[in-house]
């Protein structure tokens, strides 16, 4: 067994994961904050106004990374769900379930910023744009996972049921996306493109990419925090948690 597999095994043990998360989280959060502030400065202040949309386009610095995160988190959630179901791993169950609220939040931010962008651009708070509509369906998928998880009294059973739902969702996600795209062309004729021309100026690109990094770091920090808390709650009867509560160093 090479060192990577060994490390992964160790990570799966609740006390080790808790320690790992506890140490790593402040770093991720700090880096995320720094990256986020710099990215926002770059996007809101440094980058020039868009040729067509003026200053209103600047919302993409939040909208686009949020959209990417909403999909990325679902993918992470699906991997964790798969591991949870196949290997019945407690930590994987926790990680999968704690991804859901973060993913839902990012999806909501995507929809809200998309709506805010739509108002000055097309004069309406909501357009049935193919991508926004797919995001809306994605939000419902996240909410479904959350709802199913919380409907069970036993969190482990609930996590497994919700994990199954996640996998069903991810298989259907491409179908939903394709059907919404088709529907959009059918009923509107021309696709409304929210992101402007495909070529994007470098002065606009780097804040976007940096913001993407910031959101990823934030996701990591948030996930570690939530998972640690959930782990404590799930393992509350165990010795290592009691030691921790009593203030002994583990």
């Amino acid at each position, binding site marked *: 067994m090479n060192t990577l597999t060994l490390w992964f095994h160790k990570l799966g043990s609740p006390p080790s994961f808790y320690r790992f998360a506890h140490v790593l989280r402040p770093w991720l959060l700090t880096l995320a904050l720094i990256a986020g502030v710099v990215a926002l400065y770059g996007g809101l202040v440094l980058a020039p106004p868009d040729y067509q949309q003026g200053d209103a386009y600047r919302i993409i610095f939040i909208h686009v990374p949020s959209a990417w995160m909403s999909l990325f988190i679902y993918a992470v959630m699906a991997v964790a769900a798969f591991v949870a179901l196949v290997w019945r791993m407690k930590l994987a169950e926790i990680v999968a379930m704690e991804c859901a609220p973060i993913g839902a939040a990012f999806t909501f931010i995507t929809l809200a910023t998309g709506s805010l962008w739509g108002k000055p651009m097309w004069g309406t708070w909501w357009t049935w744009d193919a991508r926004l509509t797919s995001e809306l369906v994605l939000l419902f998928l996240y909410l479904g996972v959350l709802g199913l998880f919380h409907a069970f009294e036993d969190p482990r059973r609930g996590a497994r049921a919700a994990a199954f*739902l996640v996998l069903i969702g991810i298989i259907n996600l491409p179908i939903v996306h394709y*059907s*919404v795209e*088709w529907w959009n062309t059918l009923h509107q004729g021309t696709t409304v493109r929210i992101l402007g021309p495909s070529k994007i100026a470098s002065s606009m690109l780097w804040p976007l990419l940096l913001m993407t990094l910031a959101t990823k770091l934030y996701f990591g920090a948030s996930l570690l925090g939530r998972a640690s808390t959930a782990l404590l709650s799930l393992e509350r009867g165990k010795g290592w948690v009691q030691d921790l509560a009593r203030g002994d160093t583990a």
Partner: protein
Amino acid sequence: MTPGSTAAACLAVLRRDLLLAWRRRGDAALPLLYAIIVTALFPFAIGPEAALLSRIAAGVVLVTVLLAMLISLDSLFRADLEDGSLEQLLLAPQSLTLLAAMKILAHWLTTALPLLLLSPLLAAMLGLPQGAYGVLFLALAVSTPLISLFGAVLTSLTVDTRRSGMLLALMLLPLMVPVVIFAAGAVAAAAQGLPWAAPLAFLGAMLALAVVLAPLACGAALRIALDA
């Protein structure tokens, strides 16, 4: 047929569910009445103008059928859970996939088939153009099994939870968006005299996959939800 063989078990499950539905055949009328009433609400809501109603006819019929099936799906496994027969089903030596498939088939026969036969009436209430009736029937014939199959998998996950009806709606309706889009799209196209086969072919492909995969997923979901 020897008792205990796979064929006997499948027939036993199918026969039992059909018999149960027949014993409560009054209940079978409820989804139908629901569909009629909901369809009738639309003219009240948006006015009796014929052109507008006929434009939305395809979509409204499809959504109404979907909602009617949603209501009946929740009880697919619930009664069996409460009287202990679900437990026995899980203990049966035959493949749970096949037995689940039989239950889904019984559900479709007793819930969706009546709705399918009712659909021309619903369409007529909203003035669907004549040329589209055949396509409507075909579209429903392909989409209602999809609703039954997907619905069965999802209702298995919620079999032992409270508020399962609302939860089922939250989980099932997003996944049914493609079905609604393609089915209603096909019928609307037919109503305008445009080609309608492509979306239905796509639904047919989805159905072929679902027929094979959904019963398997349903069995797995039951075991996961009941911690078996």
